[in-house]
Protein backbone atom coordinates (compact mmCIF):
# COMPACT_ATOMS: atom_id res chain seq x y z
CA UNK A 1 0.00 0.00 0.00
CA UNK A 2 1.09 3.57 -0.61
CA UNK A 3 0.61 6.14 2.12
CA UNK A 4 -2.20 8.68 2.05
CA UNK A 5 -4.07 10.95 4.42
CA UNK A 6 -7.50 9.88 5.57
CA UNK A 7 -10.47 12.21 6.12
CA UNK A 8 -13.91 11.60 7.56
CA UNK A 9 -16.20 14.56 6.88
CA UNK A 10 -19.60 14.51 8.54
CA UNK A 11 -21.67 16.38 5.97
CA UNK A 12 -22.00 16.48 2.22
CA UNK A 13 -20.99 20.10 2.19
CA UNK A 14 -17.82 19.41 4.12
CA UNK A 15 -17.02 16.38 1.96
CA UNK A 16 -17.47 18.34 -1.21
CA UNK A 17 -15.35 21.23 0.04
CA UNK A 18 -12.61 18.90 1.21
CA UNK A 19 -12.36 17.22 -2.12
CA UNK A 20 -12.20 20.50 -3.98
CA UNK A 21 -9.67 22.05 -1.63
CA UNK A 22 -7.37 19.03 -1.43
CA UNK A 23 -7.10 19.12 -5.18
CA UNK A 24 -5.25 16.59 -7.27
CA UNK A 25 -4.75 13.16 -5.72
CA UNK A 26 -7.87 13.42 -3.54
CA UNK A 27 -10.60 10.82 -3.99
CA UNK A 28 -13.85 9.82 -2.37
CA UNK A 29 -13.83 6.50 -0.57
CA UNK A 30 -17.04 4.50 -0.64
CA UNK A 31 -16.52 0.74 -0.25
CA UNK A 32 -12.91 0.93 -1.36
CA UNK A 33 -12.85 -2.51 -2.90
CA UNK A 34 -11.65 -1.20 -6.25
CA UNK A 35 -9.85 1.87 -5.03
CA UNK A 36 -7.49 0.02 -2.69
CA UNK A 37 -6.58 -2.35 -5.49
CA UNK A 38 -5.78 0.58 -7.75
CA UNK A 39 -3.63 2.15 -5.05
CA UNK A 40 -1.70 -1.05 -4.40
CA UNK A 41 -1.18 -1.81 -8.04
CA UNK A 42 -0.08 1.80 -8.57
CA UNK A 43 -2.81 2.50 -11.05
CA UNK A 44 -3.88 5.58 -9.15
CA UNK A 45 -1.77 8.10 -7.26
CA UNK A 46 -3.78 8.86 -4.14
CA UNK A 47 -2.75 11.47 -1.59
CA UNK A 48 -6.03 11.92 0.25
CA UNK A 49 -9.01 9.71 0.79
CA UNK A 50 -12.26 11.31 1.79
CA UNK A 51 -14.50 8.71 3.39
CA UNK A 52 -18.19 9.62 3.28
CA UNK A 53 -19.29 6.96 5.75
CA UNK A 54 -20.00 9.48 8.50
CA UNK A 55 -22.24 11.56 6.29
CA UNK A 56 -25.76 10.80 7.55
CA UNK A 57 -28.62 9.66 5.38
CA UNK A 58 -26.70 7.76 2.72
CA UNK A 59 -27.33 4.26 4.05
CA UNK A 60 -31.03 3.92 3.25
CA UNK A 61 -32.77 1.42 1.01
CA UNK A 62 -36.34 2.48 0.28
CA UNK A 63 -39.16 1.20 -1.85
CA UNK A 64 -42.33 2.93 -2.96
CA UNK A 65 -44.92 1.75 -5.48
CA UNK A 66 -44.83 5.15 -7.15
CA UNK A 67 -41.13 5.95 -7.39
CA UNK A 68 -39.61 2.50 -7.13
CA UNK A 69 -36.34 1.59 -5.46
CA UNK A 70 -33.95 4.14 -4.02
CA UNK A 71 -30.66 3.30 -2.34
CA UNK A 72 -28.03 5.58 -0.87
CA UNK A 73 -24.34 5.85 -1.65
CA UNK A 74 -23.29 3.83 1.39
CA UNK A 75 -25.45 0.82 0.60
CA UNK A 76 -23.30 -2.21 -0.11
CA UNK A 77 -23.95 -4.76 -2.80
CA UNK A 78 -24.53 -7.31 -0.05
CA UNK A 79 -27.13 -5.16 1.72
CA UNK A 80 -29.03 -4.49 -1.47
CA UNK A 81 -28.91 -8.16 -2.44
CA UNK A 82 -30.31 -9.14 0.94
CA UNK A 83 -32.88 -6.35 1.17
CA UNK A 84 -35.73 -8.31 -0.34
CA UNK A 85 -36.82 -5.37 -2.49
CA UNK A 86 -35.23 -6.89 -5.54
CA UNK A 87 -37.13 -10.18 -5.44
CA UNK A 88 -39.65 -10.34 -8.20
CA UNK A 89 -38.95 -6.78 -9.26
CA UNK A 90 -35.36 -6.53 -10.33
CA UNK A 91 -34.15 -10.08 -10.95
CA UNK A 92 -31.56 -8.69 -13.36
CA UNK A 93 -29.99 -6.42 -10.74
CA UNK A 94 -30.17 -9.24 -8.25
CA UNK A 95 -28.33 -11.57 -10.61
CA UNK A 96 -25.71 -8.90 -11.26
CA UNK A 97 -25.11 -8.37 -7.55
CA UNK A 98 -24.81 -12.10 -7.00
CA UNK A 99 -22.23 -12.29 -9.78
CA UNK A 100 -20.14 -9.41 -8.43
CA UNK A 101 -16.79 -10.68 -7.11
CA UNK A 102 -17.27 -12.58 -3.83
CA UNK A 103 -19.50 -12.47 -0.77
CA UNK A 104 -16.70 -10.80 1.19
CA UNK A 105 -16.24 -8.12 -1.44
CA UNK A 106 -19.99 -7.52 -1.69
CA UNK A 107 -20.07 -6.82 2.03
CA UNK A 108 -17.77 -3.86 1.43
CA UNK A 109 -18.37 -2.76 -2.14
CA UNK A 110 -21.10 -0.17 -2.56
CA UNK A 111 -23.38 -0.26 -5.56
CA UNK A 112 -22.85 3.44 -6.12
CA UNK A 113 -19.10 2.87 -6.02
CA UNK A 114 -19.40 0.10 -8.59
CA UNK A 115 -21.36 2.49 -10.81
CA UNK A 116 -19.12 5.52 -10.28
CA UNK A 117 -16.00 3.63 -11.20
CA UNK A 118 -17.49 3.67 -14.69
CA UNK A 119 -15.92 0.42 -15.77
CA UNK A 120 -17.53 -0.92 -18.94
CA UNK A 121 -17.49 -4.37 -17.34
CA UNK A 122 -19.09 -3.37 -14.01
CA UNK A 123 -21.82 -5.87 -13.27
CA UNK A 124 -24.40 -3.55 -11.78
CA UNK A 125 -24.47 -1.03 -14.61
CA UNK A 126 -26.20 -3.00 -17.41
CA UNK A 127 -29.27 -3.94 -15.34
CA UNK A 128 -29.52 -0.44 -13.86
CA UNK A 129 -29.38 1.08 -17.34
CA UNK A 130 -31.90 -1.42 -18.68
CA UNK A 131 -34.22 -0.56 -15.80
CA UNK A 132 -33.90 3.18 -16.36
CA UNK A 133 -32.02 4.09 -13.18
CA UNK A 134 -31.36 7.73 -12.32
CA UNK A 135 -28.37 9.12 -10.41
CA UNK A 136 -28.98 11.72 -7.70
CA UNK A 137 -26.12 14.04 -6.83
CA UNK A 138 -25.13 16.73 -4.37
CA UNK A 139 -23.42 19.88 -5.63
CA UNK A 140 -22.68 23.06 -3.75
CA UNK A 141 -24.81 24.92 -6.30
CA UNK A 142 -27.64 22.37 -6.20
CA UNK A 143 -27.86 18.66 -6.96
CA UNK A 144 -28.82 16.97 -10.19
CA UNK A 145 -30.78 13.96 -11.42
CA UNK A 146 -28.86 12.24 -14.21
CA UNK A 147 -30.23 9.26 -16.13
CA UNK A 148 -27.65 6.53 -15.76
CA UNK A 149 -27.51 6.03 -19.51
CA UNK A 150 -26.09 9.58 -19.75
CA UNK A 151 -23.79 9.34 -16.75
CA UNK A 152 -20.66 7.92 -18.36
CA UNK A 153 -18.15 9.89 -20.36
CA UNK A 154 -15.78 7.04 -21.17
CA UNK A 155 -13.97 4.19 -19.46
CA UNK A 156 -13.38 5.29 -15.86
CA UNK A 157 -14.98 8.69 -16.51
CA UNK A 158 -18.34 10.14 -15.55
CA UNK A 159 -20.02 13.49 -16.09
CA UNK A 160 -19.62 14.37 -12.40
CA UNK A 161 -18.09 17.75 -11.73
CA UNK A 162 -15.27 18.26 -9.22
CA UNK A 163 -16.74 18.10 -5.73
CA UNK A 164 -20.03 16.64 -6.95
CA UNK A 165 -21.11 13.61 -4.94
CA UNK A 166 -23.49 10.84 -5.90
CA UNK A 167 -25.88 10.42 -3.01
CA UNK A 168 -28.37 7.86 -4.30
CA UNK A 169 -29.69 5.85 -7.21
CA UNK A 170 -33.35 5.53 -8.03
CA UNK A 171 -34.75 2.72 -10.13
CA UNK A 172 -38.34 3.13 -11.35
CA UNK A 173 -40.83 0.42 -10.39
CA UNK A 174 -41.28 -2.33 -12.97
CA UNK A 175 -44.28 -1.86 -15.23
CA UNK A 176 -46.97 -4.48 -15.66
CA UNK A 177 -45.78 -7.56 -17.50
CA UNK A 178 -42.16 -6.78 -16.86
CA UNK A 179 -39.52 -9.46 -17.56
CA UNK A 180 -35.88 -8.95 -16.75
CA UNK A 181 -32.62 -10.82 -16.78
CA UNK A 182 -28.87 -10.30 -16.59
CA UNK A 183 -26.34 -12.76 -17.96
CA UNK A 184 -22.63 -12.53 -17.43
CA UNK A 185 -20.03 -14.36 -19.44
CA UNK A 186 -16.79 -15.42 -17.79
CA UNK A 187 -14.49 -18.41 -17.86
CA UNK A 188 -15.22 -19.28 -14.25
CA UNK A 189 -18.48 -19.40 -12.38
CA UNK A 190 -17.42 -16.81 -9.79
CA UNK A 191 -14.70 -14.25 -9.11
CA UNK A 192 -14.88 -13.02 -12.66
CA UNK A 193 -14.83 -9.73 -14.44
CA UNK A 194 -17.46 -9.91 -17.14
CA UNK A 195 -16.10 -10.69 -20.60
CA UNK A 196 -19.58 -9.72 -21.76
CA UNK A 197 -22.63 -8.79 -19.69
CA UNK A 198 -26.11 -8.45 -21.11
CA UNK A 199 -29.14 -7.08 -19.26
CA UNK A 200 -32.61 -7.02 -20.71
CA UNK A 201 -35.73 -5.44 -19.37
CA UNK A 202 -38.93 -6.21 -21.29
CA UNK A 203 -42.61 -5.51 -21.00
CA UNK A 204 -44.85 -8.17 -22.47
CA UNK A 205 -48.63 -8.05 -22.83
CA UNK A 206 -50.52 -11.07 -24.09
CA UNK A 207 -47.36 -12.43 -25.67
CA UNK A 208 -46.62 -9.15 -27.41
CA UNK A 209 -43.49 -7.22 -26.48
CA UNK A 210 -44.51 -3.64 -25.71
CA UNK A 211 -41.23 -2.33 -24.34
CA UNK A 212 -37.60 -3.41 -24.35
CA UNK A 213 -34.32 -2.08 -23.06
CA UNK A 214 -31.10 -3.97 -23.74
CA UNK A 215 -27.80 -2.95 -22.13
CA UNK A 216 -24.46 -4.44 -23.14
CA UNK A 217 -21.49 -4.54 -20.79
CA UNK A 218 -17.76 -4.95 -21.51
CA UNK A 219 -18.18 -4.48 -25.26
CA UNK A 220 -17.57 -0.75 -25.60
CA UNK A 221 -15.91 2.15 -23.82
CA UNK A 222 -18.99 2.42 -21.62
CA UNK A 223 -21.97 0.15 -21.03
CA UNK A 224 -24.09 0.52 -24.17
CA UNK A 225 -27.78 0.62 -24.84
CA UNK A 226 -28.73 -1.28 -27.99
CA UNK A 227 -31.64 0.76 -29.40
CA UNK A 228 -31.93 -1.03 -32.72
CA UNK A 229 -31.97 -4.38 -31.00
CA UNK A 230 -34.71 -3.05 -28.76
CA UNK A 231 -36.64 -1.91 -31.83
CA UNK A 232 -36.59 -5.42 -33.23
CA UNK A 233 -38.00 -6.81 -29.99
CA UNK A 234 -40.73 -4.22 -29.47
CA UNK A 235 -43.94 -5.09 -31.27
CA UNK A 236 -42.86 -8.70 -31.81
CA UNK A 237 -44.01 -11.94 -30.22
CA UNK A 238 -40.42 -12.78 -29.23
CA UNK A 239 -40.36 -15.99 -31.23
CA UNK A 240 -37.20 -17.76 -32.27
CA UNK A 241 -36.82 -15.79 -35.49
CA UNK A 242 -37.12 -12.47 -33.67
CA UNK A 243 -34.64 -13.56 -31.02
CA UNK A 244 -32.13 -14.53 -33.67
CA UNK A 245 -32.60 -11.23 -35.46
CA UNK A 246 -32.20 -9.34 -32.19
CA UNK A 247 -29.05 -11.29 -31.40
CA UNK A 248 -27.62 -10.45 -34.82
CA UNK A 249 -28.47 -6.80 -34.35
CA UNK A 250 -26.92 -6.65 -30.86
CA UNK A 251 -23.71 -8.01 -32.35
CA UNK A 252 -23.73 -5.10 -34.78
CA UNK A 253 -24.42 -2.56 -32.10
CA UNK A 254 -21.50 -3.37 -29.82
CA UNK A 255 -17.92 -2.15 -30.22
CA UNK A 256 -15.72 -4.62 -28.35
CA UNK A 257 -11.94 -4.65 -28.12
CA UNK A 258 -9.49 -7.54 -27.80
CA UNK A 259 -7.55 -8.09 -24.59
CA UNK A 260 -6.19 -10.93 -22.51
CA UNK A 261 -9.71 -11.98 -21.51
CA UNK A 262 -11.11 -12.45 -25.00
CA UNK A 263 -10.84 -11.28 -28.57
CA UNK A 264 -13.17 -8.68 -30.02
CA UNK A 265 -14.64 -11.26 -32.38
CA UNK A 266 -15.43 -13.66 -29.58
CA UNK A 267 -16.97 -10.92 -27.47
CA UNK A 268 -19.17 -9.91 -30.37
CA UNK A 269 -20.30 -13.47 -30.87
CA UNK A 270 -21.12 -13.77 -27.15
CA UNK A 271 -23.19 -10.61 -27.28
CA UNK A 272 -25.41 -12.48 -29.73
CA UNK A 273 -25.61 -15.65 -27.67
CA UNK A 274 -26.17 -13.82 -24.40
CA UNK A 275 -28.77 -11.44 -25.79
CA UNK A 276 -30.84 -14.35 -27.06
CA UNK A 277 -30.39 -16.30 -23.84
CA UNK A 278 -31.13 -13.28 -21.67
CA UNK A 279 -34.46 -12.66 -23.42
CA UNK A 280 -35.35 -16.31 -23.00
CA UNK A 281 -34.37 -16.25 -19.34
CA UNK A 282 -36.33 -13.04 -18.77
CA UNK A 283 -39.44 -14.65 -20.18
CA UNK A 284 -38.97 -17.57 -17.78
CA UNK A 285 -38.42 -15.33 -14.76
CA UNK A 286 -41.66 -14.53 -13.02
CA UNK A 287 -42.15 -10.79 -13.20
Amino acid at each position, binding site marked *: *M*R*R*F*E*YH*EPTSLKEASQLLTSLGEGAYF*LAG*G*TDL*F*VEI*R*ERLRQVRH*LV*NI*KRVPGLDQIEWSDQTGLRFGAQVTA*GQLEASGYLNGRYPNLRAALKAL*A*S*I*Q*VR*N*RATVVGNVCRASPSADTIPPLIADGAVIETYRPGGGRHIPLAEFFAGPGRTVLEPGEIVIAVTVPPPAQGSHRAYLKHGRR*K*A*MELATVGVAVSLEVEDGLCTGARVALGAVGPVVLRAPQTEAILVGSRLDAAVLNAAAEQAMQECTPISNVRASAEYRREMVGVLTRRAVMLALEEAA
Partner: protein
Amino acid sequence: MNKIHLEITVNGEARSMMVEGHRSLLDALREEAGLTGTKKGCDVGDCGACTVIVDGRPVNACLMLAVEAQGAEILTIEGLQPDPDTLHPLQEAFMEHGASQCGFCSPGILIMAKCLLDRNPLPSDEEIRFGLSGNICRCTGYTKIFDAIRTAGRRMAAARAQSVEA
Protein backbone atom coordinates in the same frame (compact mmCIF):
# COMPACT_ATOMS: atom_id res chain seq x y z
CA MET B 1 1.47 10.59 8.34
CA ASN B 2 -0.67 11.27 11.37
CA LYS B 3 -1.87 8.36 13.40
CA ILE B 4 -5.41 7.73 14.45
CA HIS B 5 -6.50 6.22 17.72
CA LEU B 6 -8.39 3.03 17.00
CA GLU B 7 -10.61 1.15 19.41
CA ILE B 8 -11.84 -2.24 18.31
CA THR B 9 -12.94 -5.48 19.89
CA VAL B 10 -11.11 -8.49 18.56
CA ASN B 11 -12.23 -11.97 19.55
CA GLY B 12 -14.06 -10.50 22.51
CA GLU B 13 -11.10 -8.50 23.75
CA ALA B 14 -11.07 -4.69 23.65
CA ARG B 15 -8.00 -3.37 21.91
CA SER B 16 -6.75 0.10 21.34
CA MET B 17 -3.94 1.06 19.01
CA MET B 18 -2.56 3.92 16.98
CA VAL B 19 -2.74 3.35 13.25
CA GLU B 20 -1.93 5.36 10.19
CA GLY B 21 -4.86 6.19 7.94
CA HIS B 22 -3.62 4.10 5.05
CA ARG B 23 -3.16 0.91 7.08
CA SER B 24 -5.36 -1.96 6.08
CA LEU B 25 -7.27 -3.82 8.74
CA LEU B 26 -5.27 -6.88 7.71
CA ASP B 27 -1.92 -5.24 8.41
CA ALA B 28 -3.21 -3.77 11.66
CA LEU B 29 -4.39 -7.18 12.85
CA ARG B 30 -1.21 -8.95 11.82
CA GLU B 31 1.34 -6.35 12.81
CA GLU B 32 -0.24 -4.10 15.42
CA ALA B 33 -2.38 -6.69 17.20
CA GLY B 34 0.02 -9.60 16.58
CA LEU B 35 -2.75 -11.80 15.23
CA THR B 36 -0.95 -13.48 12.37
CA GLY B 37 -3.45 -16.29 11.89
CA THR B 38 -5.23 -14.21 9.26
CA LYS B 39 -3.20 -14.55 6.07
CA LYS B 40 -2.26 -12.29 3.19
CA GLY B 41 -2.47 -14.18 -0.08
CA CYS B 42 -2.95 -11.29 -2.48
CA ASP B 43 -3.73 -8.04 -0.63
CA VAL B 44 -6.27 -7.10 -3.31
CA GLY B 45 -9.43 -9.00 -2.41
CA ASP B 46 -8.99 -11.91 -4.78
CA CYS B 47 -8.09 -14.86 -2.55
CA GLY B 48 -10.09 -14.72 0.68
CA ALA B 49 -7.13 -15.75 2.88
CA CYS B 50 -7.67 -12.59 4.93
CA THR B 51 -11.36 -13.18 5.61
CA VAL B 52 -12.48 -11.97 9.04
CA ILE B 53 -15.89 -11.19 10.47
CA VAL B 54 -16.58 -7.52 11.11
CA ASP B 55 -19.82 -6.76 12.94
CA GLY B 56 -21.27 -10.07 11.89
CA ARG B 57 -20.28 -9.95 8.22
CA PRO B 58 -17.39 -11.66 6.47
CA VAL B 59 -15.08 -9.24 4.70
CA ASN B 60 -11.61 -9.19 3.17
CA ALA B 61 -9.46 -7.53 5.82
CA CYS B 62 -7.10 -6.38 3.06
CA LEU B 63 -9.87 -4.34 1.43
CA MET B 64 -10.75 -2.38 4.52
CA LEU B 65 -8.83 0.35 6.26
CA ALA B 66 -8.18 -0.23 9.93
CA VAL B 67 -9.75 3.14 10.73
CA GLU B 68 -12.96 2.02 9.05
CA ALA B 69 -13.28 -0.64 11.74
CA GLN B 70 -13.49 2.00 14.49
CA GLY B 71 -15.71 0.58 17.24
CA ALA B 72 -16.30 -2.70 15.41
CA GLU B 73 -16.47 -6.23 16.75
CA ILE B 74 -14.06 -8.45 14.87
CA LEU B 75 -13.67 -12.20 14.84
CA THR B 76 -10.50 -13.77 13.47
CA ILE B 77 -9.36 -17.37 13.27
CA GLU B 78 -7.76 -16.98 16.69
CA GLY B 79 -11.24 -16.50 18.12
CA LEU B 80 -12.93 -19.45 16.50
CA GLN B 81 -12.31 -21.93 19.32
CA PRO B 82 -15.01 -21.72 22.00
CA ASP B 83 -12.25 -22.12 24.61
CA PRO B 84 -8.56 -22.93 24.44
CA ASP B 85 -9.07 -26.64 25.00
CA THR B 86 -11.95 -27.14 22.62
CA LEU B 87 -11.96 -26.96 18.87
CA HIS B 88 -14.87 -25.53 16.95
CA PRO B 89 -16.81 -28.32 15.17
CA LEU B 90 -15.50 -26.95 11.89
CA GLN B 91 -11.93 -27.28 13.08
CA GLU B 92 -12.61 -30.85 14.22
CA ALA B 93 -14.08 -31.70 10.86
CA PHE B 94 -11.21 -30.04 8.99
CA MET B 95 -8.79 -32.28 10.89
CA GLU B 96 -10.76 -35.44 10.21
CA HIS B 97 -11.37 -34.84 6.55
CA GLY B 98 -7.93 -33.53 5.67
CA ALA B 99 -9.47 -30.24 4.58
CA SER B 100 -6.27 -28.37 5.33
CA GLN B 101 -3.08 -29.18 3.47
CA CYS B 102 -0.63 -26.30 3.40
CA GLY B 103 -3.17 -24.50 5.56
CA PHE B 104 -2.59 -21.05 4.16
CA CYS B 105 -6.19 -20.77 2.98
CA SER B 106 -7.60 -22.45 6.08
CA PRO B 107 -8.12 -19.47 8.41
CA GLY B 108 -10.09 -17.61 5.76
CA ILE B 109 -12.07 -20.64 4.72
CA LEU B 110 -12.90 -21.60 8.31
CA ILE B 111 -14.15 -18.10 9.02
CA MET B 112 -16.20 -18.10 5.83
CA ALA B 113 -17.58 -21.54 6.61
CA LYS B 114 -18.57 -20.38 10.09
CA CYS B 115 -20.59 -17.54 8.55
CA LEU B 116 -22.23 -19.98 6.19
CA LEU B 117 -23.17 -22.51 8.89
CA ASP B 118 -24.32 -19.89 11.37
CA ARG B 119 -26.85 -18.77 8.80
CA ASN B 120 -27.63 -22.13 7.29
CA PRO B 121 -26.60 -25.20 9.30
CA LEU B 122 -27.43 -27.71 6.58
CA PRO B 123 -26.31 -26.11 3.36
CA SER B 124 -26.68 -27.88 0.05
CA ASP B 125 -23.60 -28.66 -2.02
CA GLU B 126 -24.43 -25.71 -4.24
CA GLU B 127 -24.69 -23.41 -1.25
CA ILE B 128 -21.34 -24.53 0.11
CA ARG B 129 -19.67 -23.99 -3.23
CA PHE B 130 -21.27 -20.59 -3.61
CA GLY B 131 -20.36 -19.65 -0.05
CA LEU B 132 -16.68 -20.37 -0.70
CA SER B 133 -16.47 -18.78 -4.12
CA GLY B 134 -14.29 -15.96 -2.82
CA ASN B 135 -11.78 -18.25 -1.11
CA ILE B 136 -8.99 -19.80 -3.11
CA CYS B 137 -7.55 -23.12 -2.09
CA ARG B 138 -4.84 -24.41 -4.40
CA CYS B 139 -3.98 -27.63 -2.54
CA THR B 140 -7.09 -29.65 -1.90
CA GLY B 141 -9.31 -29.44 -4.94
CA TYR B 142 -11.95 -28.33 -2.38
CA THR B 143 -13.51 -31.79 -2.10
CA LYS B 144 -12.29 -32.40 1.43
CA ILE B 145 -13.29 -28.89 2.44
CA PHE B 146 -16.85 -29.46 1.23
CA ASP B 147 -16.96 -32.76 3.14
CA ALA B 148 -15.70 -31.13 6.32
CA ILE B 149 -18.25 -28.32 6.17
CA ARG B 150 -21.10 -30.77 5.62
CA THR B 151 -19.94 -32.90 8.56
CA ALA B 152 -19.56 -29.91 10.86
CA GLY B 153 -22.96 -28.57 9.83
CA ARG B 154 -24.66 -31.83 10.62
CA ARG B 155 -22.99 -32.04 14.02
CA MET B 156 -23.77 -28.46 14.89
CA ALA B 157 -27.40 -28.92 13.90
CA ALA B 158 -27.62 -32.10 15.95
CA ALA B 159 -26.06 -30.42 18.97
CA ARG B 160 -28.46 -27.52 18.64
CA ALA B 161 -31.45 -29.85 18.38
CA GLN B 162 -30.27 -31.65 21.51
CA SER B 163 -29.84 -28.50 23.52
CA VAL B 164 -33.33 -27.40 22.48
CA GLU B 165 -34.76 -30.72 23.68
CA ALA B 166 -32.90 -30.57 26.95
